[in-house]
């Protein structure tokens, strides 16, 4: 019962209180349980940059061999669900207008004839510019198919693919291999951010925060006891995603598990500091949730998960370095596919440690600031 800065008894009492609060609060429970399952399903199965399951329209005015060959190849292409044959240019336009097809192929009357005469056949491709990204990718797929047909026409000519591209680390460019490791970080980020940002705001709504402040407990104790549940839950969620990646999606894990765990812990600690700062300035739980999203969403967008950091303006690149997720993504993606050497991991680990130190210190200052 002394006025010391640290007491294990007080810390234990608060830790039990925090864990029970998180697990018994329906809102916190939802934050812990729903997003992992939802994100796993949504991101892993739905969110993809590949083009699949699209329809293509074909207006074939040529009755010759080569157009037949081309259409057959389209029919058997795996990314196309249906090839829709139309008999007028107008109908072709309509299908694109209505968004029924992503692209249309118009083959002129003299297509096969020109090829037979030794010329090069030309066909027109119309792509839906409203879906520019998918459209472009479709056009690229279509030109590959056309090139293959061309290779058959003149088998002796030079190789149609002068350059053979080989993708290292992810030779088949499986999109999930890239997205699931990244999800580990995003999931841990949001759960830790929400749990901590709710924690002080919840107590303020209940009026128990004043009760805590008049007790002999010190600010570092409050910070530690509020960090631990988020740390435990965030780490467990991160590990859950890592094992889902390894066992469910079969992504090769080639790096060091120990180093990944260490960086996961440091990463969550730095997020916990941000969450506690948000919580310290929020008067209600609603404000805290809004605050968490206002910080979390831009952090994800700028972290390099969606777009490469190198493509951003220099100023934003600097800012991205202050986002813990940026560093963690490098580590987790490296650990999964690249067998990143410890030296490289450490290069991203120390900024994480630095950010954690800064955010936790600031959280302490913010909480103490409540005492005005």
């Amino acid at each position, binding site marked *: 019962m*002394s006025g010391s800065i640290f007491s294990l*008894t*007080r810390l234990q*009492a608060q830790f*039990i209180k925090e864990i029970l609060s998180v697990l018994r609060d329906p809102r916190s429970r939802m934050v812990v349980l729903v997003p992992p399952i939802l994100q796993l399903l949504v991101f892993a199965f739905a969110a993809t940059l590949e083009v699949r399951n699209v329809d293509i329209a074909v207006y074939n005015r040529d009755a010759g061999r080569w157009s037949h060959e081309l259409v057959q190849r389209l029919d058997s292409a795996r990314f196309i669900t249906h090839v829709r044959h139309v008999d007028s240019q107008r109908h072709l336009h309509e299908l694109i207008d209505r968004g029924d097809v992503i692209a249309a192929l118009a083959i002129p009357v003299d297509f096969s004839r020109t090829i037979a005469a030794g010329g090069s056949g030309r066909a027109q491709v119309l792509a839906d510019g409203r879906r520019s990204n998918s459209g472009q990718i479709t056009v690229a797929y279509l030109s590959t198919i056309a090139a293959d047909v061309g290779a058959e026409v003149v088998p002796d000519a030079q190789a149609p693919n002068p350059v053979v591209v080989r993708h290292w680390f992810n030779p088949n460019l499986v999109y999930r291999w890239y997205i699931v490791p990244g999800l580990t970080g995003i999931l841990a980020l949001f759960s830790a951010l929400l749990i901590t940002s709710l924690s002080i705001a919840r107590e303020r709504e209940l*009026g*128990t925060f004043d009760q805590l402040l008049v007790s*002999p407990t010190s600010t570092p104790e409050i910070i530690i006891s509020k960090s631990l549940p988020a740390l435990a839950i965030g780490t467990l969620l991160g590990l859950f995603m890592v094992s889902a990646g390894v066992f469910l999606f079969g992504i090769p894990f080639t790096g060091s598990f120990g180093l990944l765990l260490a960086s996961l812990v440091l990463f969550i600690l730095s997020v916990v500091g941000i969450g506690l700062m948000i919580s310290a300035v929020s008067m209600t739980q609603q404000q805290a949730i809004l605050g968490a999203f206002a910080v979390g969403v831009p952090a994800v967008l700028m972290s390099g998960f969606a777009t490469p950091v190198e493509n951003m303006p220099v100023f934003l690149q600097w800012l991205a370095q202050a986002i813990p997720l940026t560093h963690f993504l490098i580590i987790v993606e490296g650990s999964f596919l690249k067998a990143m050497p410890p030296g490289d991991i450490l290069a991203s680990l120390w900024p994480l440690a630095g950010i954690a130190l800064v955010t936790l210190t600031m959280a302490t200052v913010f909480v103490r600031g409540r005492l005005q």
Partner: protein
Amino acid sequence: MQVSPVVATAPKSADAGTAAVVIEGVDKHFGSVQALRTLSARIHYGRLTGLVGPDGAGKTTLMRILTGLLVPNTGRVTLAGYDVVRDNDAIHVASGYMPQRFGLYEDLSVMENMRLYAQLRGMDSDRNADLFAELLDFTRLGPFTMRLAGKLSGGMKQKLGLACALMARPKVLLLDEPGVGVDPVSRQDLWRMVQALTDDGMAVVWSTAYLDEAERCESVLLLNQGQLLFDGPPQELTAQLEGRSFRLEDVGAGRRSVLTEALDLPSVSDGVIQGAGVRVVLRDGADVAQIQALADRTQVHLAAVPARFEDAFIDLLGGGPGGTSALAERLPPVELDSEVAVSCRKLTKRFGDFTATDSVSFEVQKGEIFGLLGPNGAGKSTTFKMLCGLLKPTAGEAHVVGHDLRRATGAAKSRLGYMAQKFSLYGLLSVRQNLEFSAGVYGLEGGVRRERIEEMITTFDLGDWLSATPDSLPLGHKQRLALACSLMHRPPVLFLDEPTSGVDPITRREFWTHINGLARKGVTVMVTTHFMDEAEYCDRVAMLSRARLIALDTPDALKRSAVSPERPDPTMEDAFIHLVESADREMEAAA
């Protein structure tokens, strides 16, 4: 007060006395909670009807049924002749409703709020100018039309709410707890306004948990746990208690033990401390002999006093709790090195250029019950928060049992207990976990910890509720739990921040029994309160107004200072209003 022209179109005395609202066999339940049980009553034009009862009695539910916001499960209600369910649209025209929580837009100015309300009522703007002027004059909000509603004081907010509710010239005005968060001075203003409205024939319903407000109503509907206990003029109810209320005059220092003894007498049903005296109510048909014997033994004068509405309420519920605090019985007497438990010198707090507390100094003796009173915004909660370490003073110093709150925060904090307004308990933890937590956070360990927790469970009779959540506890038990948590570490000083607001009178009495018991064991109690009768329990009261300490004395001395020819026996509320107003006059004179 002049008769207001605002209600010129309200029904005239022709309908006065006829029923404005007819309630017939109304039942309302929310899930398994029975909010109203087969309630039947009438509310008349030209009268102020009080809807009285403790929190959770069903007042707000009834109000919301009257305004057509809730549909009763059974029974029917008509308001100004319209059925509240079938003629819902007509109800909104015939009634004006002022909800409990400030129902206005805080980010709009006074004028913008009024305009918005007028437009919502579909009124054209040409006619508004006159009406607005009338309403502003009536509510005396004229000088503040440009101020944001969120920046108004509690009393002014209520007046603005009233102005907006009066906008449509309603026949029936429903006010849901307009007195909450309003200091006695502003409350006085509200009473005057409502009086003017009823004089003009409007039916006004004023719901309240303060029983002293009930006495000012012409008619009262007394609710408890959804049941109508009494319907009629309050005097009728108090008359039944005639000849059963007495006061032991000038008992002085021994009043707390005298109260305990009196409450433990079988013939006494209820008792409270009033300044230096003890006020008791005898049981129905009980003899005065026992209390007379007590008066003789303590050599004080026993005087018969008029009955109060609160006496009657407690009597209807079967009397107050006993006088012995099981808690205080177990507590060892407090030993302190110094006789001064809490002190502050030139305590000042500024927020920007606003001074919330201005150079306040006082000393509180060990074992004293010390009250902090003041209008809203007077700085009493700022001062209170600085004394228990929740705010850092801008200047000056505060000491708790000899520890400076600036330097030895940890040491000082471990010697004080704190209980906040809403019983800040962890709703997600069970009762036992709450007890465990407060023991832990005050660093109690091992055997001592188990012992203390068990002690609190037996003392406060919490054994049956250990795995329940605090929110599911009856109010009385919830309060006991909050008190148990704040006393776990046996602090020599206890801080209570409006500990009994929203609590029924029986629970309040039980609470004060414990507090009196603690004070007799030498625990120093610092308390802020809105209830003027609770200030009577204090040994001394510090009165704050406009950030300054304007008076510091015993409750009796404060009351004496307000004695005037018109008011030979002023109440604590009279004293409060008198002191605040004369301090304001002095300020103006000095300026």
